[in-house]
């Protein structure tokens, strides 16, 4: 994992802190992710925000499937985010995002968006 002050690149993801205070996450294309990836992502986000909850923008369109352990870890560590916007773009990402919201039931405000602009606008209302 390489680190800069505002960006962390992991084995399966890239995450960075934007000037507007949002954190943006992109998963490596078509790679399944599990618990260790979730832990690494949360650690990276904590490193970027200093542990303060921040709005998180996640690009899921090209992401691979994510297993239950990973989903549960994101829910368990909900304190690192103030809100999560899941940007989807194909049937798979739409299904995974819907499943996460409706079945896994995250504790932080979480919403699905078809376009990035709407997601950013919504997240800006969750800046802490």
């Amino acid at each position, binding site marked *: 994992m390489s680190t800069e002050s505002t960006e962390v690149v992991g084995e399966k993801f890239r995450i960075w802190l934007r000037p507007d205070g949002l954190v943006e996450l992109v998963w490596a*294309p078509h790679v399944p992710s599990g618990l260790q990836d979730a832990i690494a992502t949360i650690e990276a986000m904590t490193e970027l925000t200093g542990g303060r909850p921040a709005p998180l923008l996640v690009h899921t*369109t090209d992401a691979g*499937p994510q297993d239950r352990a990973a989903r549960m870890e994101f829910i368990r560590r909900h304190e690192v985010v103030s809100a999560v916007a899941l940007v989807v773009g194909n049937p*798979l*990402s739409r299904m995974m995002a819907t*499943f996460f919201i409706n079945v896994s039931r995250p504790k932080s405000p979480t919403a699905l968006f078809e376009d990035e602009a709407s997601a950013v606008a919504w997240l800006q209302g969750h800046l802490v």
Partner: protein
Amino acid sequence: MTTTPAPHEPDAVPDLTRRLEEVVAVIQELAALRFGARATVTAASDIVDAVAAGVNALGEELAASYDEIEQRVADRTAELAVATQELRRRALHDDLTGLANRTAFWDRLAHRLDVGDGPRTRCAVLFLDLDDFKTVNDTLGHRAGDQLLVDVARRITSQLRAGDLAARVGGDEFVVLLDDVATADAALTVAHRISEALRAPHELGGHRYTAASSIGVAVGPDGLDTPDAIVAAADAAMYDAKRRGSDACVVYDRERHGQASTVDVVPVR
């Protein structure tokens, strides 16, 4: 992840069929509670991948729910076992002293008389009643009375061997099964030992109290081959001991005490 032909390509329909068949196979596996089954999710991220990933995710949730239910069942079963054990303990023990209760004593005595090997192995029952126990309750209070009963139970038990059994069967009434005694005199010796142990002063809420007792002794199975008969005999001998004065131990004698066949036991309060 694997790749899949684009919808317009010639292999698209057979490939779609193959992928859906795989998803169906995974659903069948999950229906058979084989939760490890997973459908392939391709890089196409198309609607079949959405179905496959959805089935996989549902399979994971199903497995988690199943594990949770199994854990709950295991937890409840363990709790039930503890509760059952406690109920059994309460059903067979006297709450105050922790000694066996009447039910447990009668069961054990019946078993002892059933498996007895004729006159070569005898057992004895001691019936013990505290003298003037009511005075303790009336003058020192029920708490002191309870403390005395607990003390008495402990001292009786301290005089017994591993195979013997003591029980509290009434307010201040105790019975003891001596599992293996050679003669009535041997049983009487144990009775005297218990009587002496009880005479040592008891500390009851700042008061010293010396407890006296009357003990009847009956040896079986000679003519006393049921629990009721042998306990009734010991009870009759105990009443004889009471008549003789404080702190007496008397062995049952049919000629003197008559045919003892039943015994009335005052329920433990």
